């Protein structure tokens, strides 16, 4: 609706390349942004969205390619320089100082001064005026920002951004912690700014919001540009399938799970959640997992996948509902330790911060969970530890095959295998895998998927498999639970499992 086809883009990126050690974050990405439009940047984890934004805001340098602003070549080395050039950013985690007042957060560094003395009255007046006139927000600007909910903080961040005379406003997942009413208010402001001719780059993972507000959509996947569309010409389903993508790879050698009798009802549920939920993380849900069953959790980033997994494992406390775990005491599972004792295991999504213990060796990383359950004195002898490490290095094909290597020196895929080894060693009844194949290469991916199937079929281990790649979930699961906007919306059995059906559930809304 907004951009005139004849108009020049205010921002034009051509053939951007950016790599980090071991990772190509962006390869050959083009991107255009026109004045007076809201342009959504879409992609799953690791698609390159945040890298692209950091390139634009001068946080990262680029290895190759050009950035042009209003036809002129633009090189920025820092957020300050980007702001000076007219590019302002509102980050996902609000990057303001919540200990300062609202007015200060808008004006700090640019306060009205007389003889070096900050004119508080003038500043407060201007801040109140700015918020009221441009954002229709009436608040006491002298209170610390921490007194206000995140939604207001978000608007204050926008106020700061637009007061710097920005031509381009980048909103990096601004809605991830807002409720419906707050989102509506934010969008009202965004529309107003669009009407004033500002170019707005909107990053989100909420599909509904994309269609509500954006004029155009650019999709990235795996650091590459998939395509740019007009929002009105891209059906929801196609958007989802483009984002999730399919990898035509060696994965296809793997047999699809046959709908055999494994989930027949004579196996009682080993884990059963009823009405389990946690405010702000996941709405109450029911889920039961039988022995030897592989349950897939599908949904986009931020849909509550991780939150659900963490509740089952006791990593976060549920504030409502019941969780029954076979073998756990009456009290149920309240801590990871309790979960482990009851036969659960959890590979977290964030391998670096929650999974590996980076300065310890491969051997230590593998034995740590088993040792934790045995207490101080029943130690695993060094000889036994070596045997264990050798065994898992061999069966999981961990490279390099050196048990004394520090785990931080391993590649992502091998780190993941180490964590898998850690949990297999405890012989769990239920293995929770949160994005086990994220950011690892195809070969390792196939190995991990194959392992999951072997475990459930041959050893009767149950698996909860969380993944943003639909292909993968379909391949390994006996049953799939779909999450959308922190609600478990559907459960799909083997018979009805097909891509279209699940994508519709993920996309929600009117569908295509």
């Amino acid at each position: 609706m907004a951009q005139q086809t004849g108009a020049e883009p205010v921002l034009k990126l051509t053939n951007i390349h950016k790599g980090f050690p071991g990772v190509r974050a962006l390869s050959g990405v083009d991107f255009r942004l026109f004045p007076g439009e809201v342009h959504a940047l879409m992609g799953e984890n690791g698609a390159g969205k945040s890298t692209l934004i950091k390139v634009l805001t001068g946080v990262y340098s680029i290895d190759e390619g050009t950035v042009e602003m209003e036809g002129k070549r633009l090189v920025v080395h820092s957020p300050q320089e980007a702001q000076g050039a007219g590019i302002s950013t509102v980050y996902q985690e609000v990057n303001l100082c919540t200990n300062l007042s609202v007015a200060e957060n808008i004006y700090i560094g640019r306060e009205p001064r007389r003889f070096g003395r900050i004119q508080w009255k003038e500043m407060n007046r201007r801040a109140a005026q700015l918020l009221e006139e441009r954002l229709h927000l009436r608040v006491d600007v002298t209170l610390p920002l921490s007194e206000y909910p995140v939604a207001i903080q978000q608007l204050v961040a926008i106020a700061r951004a637009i007061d710097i005379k920005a031509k381009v406003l980048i909103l990096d997942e601004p809605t991830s912690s807002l409720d419906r009413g707050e989102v509506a208010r934010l969008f009202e402001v965004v529309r107003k700014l669009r009407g004033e001719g500002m170019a707005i780059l909107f990053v989100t993972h909420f599909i509904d919001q994309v269609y509500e507000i954006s004029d155009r959509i650019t999709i990235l996947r795996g650091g590459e540009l998939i395509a740019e569309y007009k929002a009105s010409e891209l059906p929801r389903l196609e958007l989802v399938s483009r984002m999730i993508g399919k990898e035509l790879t060696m994965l296809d050698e793997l047999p699809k799970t046959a709908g055999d009798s494994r989930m027949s009802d004579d196996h009682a549920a080993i884990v059963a959640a009823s009405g389990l939920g946690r405010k702000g993380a996941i709405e109450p849900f029911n889920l039961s997992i039988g022995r030897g069953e592989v349950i897939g959790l599908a949904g986009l980033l931020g849909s509550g996948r991780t939150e659900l997994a963490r509740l089952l494992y006791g990593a976060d406390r549920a504030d409502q509902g019941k969780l029954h775990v076979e073998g756990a005491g009456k009290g149920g599972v309240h801590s990871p330790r309790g979960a482990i004792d009851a036969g659960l295991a959890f590979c977290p999504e964030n391998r670096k911060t929650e999974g590996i213990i980076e300065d310890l060796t491969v051997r230590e990383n593998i034995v740590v969970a088993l040792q934790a359950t045995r207490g101080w004195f029943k130690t695993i002898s060094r000889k036994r530890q070596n045997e264990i490490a050798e065994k898992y290095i061999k069966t999981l094909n961990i490279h390099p095959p050196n048990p004394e290597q520090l785990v931080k020196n391993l590649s992502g895929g091998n780190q993941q295998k180490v964590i898998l080894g850690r949990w297999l060693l405890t012989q769990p009844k239920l293995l929770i895998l949160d994005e086990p194949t994220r950011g690892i290469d195809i070969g390792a991916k196939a190995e991990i998927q194959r392992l999951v199937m072997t475990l459930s079929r041959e050893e009767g281990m149950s698996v909860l498999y969380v993944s943003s790649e639909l292909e993968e979930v379909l391949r390994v699961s006996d049953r799939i639970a779909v999450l959308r906007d922190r609600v478990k919306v559907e459960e799909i059995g083997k018979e009805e499992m097909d891509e279209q059906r699940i994508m519709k559930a993920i996309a929600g809304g009117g569908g295509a």
Partner: protein
Amino acid sequence: MTGDTKGRYATGKPTSWLNRTYKHHLFWPMALWMALLLFNLFYSPSFFKVVVREGHLYGSLIDILNFGAPLMLVAIGMTTVIATRGIDLSVGSVVAIAGALACQMISKGSDQNAVSLVIYAVVMALVLSIALGLWNGLLVSITGIQPIIATLILMVAGRGIAQLITDGQIITVSSTPYQYIGAGSLAGLPFSIFLVAIVFAISALLTRRTALGLYIESVGCNPEASRLAGIRAKTVMIIVYMFCGLCAGVAGLILSGNVASADGNNAGLWIELDAILAVVIGGTSLTGGRFYLTGTIVGALMIQTLTTTIYSVGVKPEVTLVVKAVVVMAVCLIQSEPFRKAIISRWKTRRYPAEREVTRHA
């Protein structure tokens, strides 16, 4: 995305003997210590002389062991605390309190030389030390207050408590068994050395023969991952602070036994700083994780040797502080990544200051 880069595995290959020695965690502390000893060898050859008088050994080396004993003990405790990403500033106060309580109890006794009384006093002092460690541990683990702040409370109040116990006096005792702790000798060597050896052996056994060492390193390295792996991180923290309190208590007994008195104001003054220094020199990082008890011992011995050397050279002993300051900064700069990077590639970090920041926080 392919995360593999073949080059990374190079570190895993067996390297030359020289390289391995150089990389060993004891290399730097040992090298520093040896350099100091070497200096003494040339400067005053009598430094290495050990004479036997009345069945006791005397000499600078023996002095280093004897006077270094309290520091070694406190540093052992501090090592375990620092390994969990913590720090204990209150050890100096605990040293004072333990000595104060023991001396107070002995001085009140009818027969100060009674072994049972001394044992009772020592046990009570150690129990109190452990209780103070427990206090620190609870503050850190349960309330989640930063260790440096949590232990500051006892650091401030502790000397007051010590003086409260002694009623502000310097209490002198004349108890042979008590003085034996700090000044006695066994098999020709100072008794305090045996205490160090025992505590060191116990801590080495506990951390290397049981799973406690693994828990400590795991918690210090990544508390959240450790919790998810089933380690009770809070319990581990409480235990190390209690152990640190115990070590400080023993050190306090040695110090006060050595002079047969308790001085609430000055006993163990600055020992926390020396202990932290010994730990850092010994190769344990202040950011937690891997810890090296042997390294700590070498670090403590180095500090004590430095003090003794400065004495023997004839420089004013207080100048040790200047040398220590230089050593602290040198060790920290070597550990500082930006510093190392700055030397290697100065220009790059300058061009994108925020990239550095953000990758640090990511």
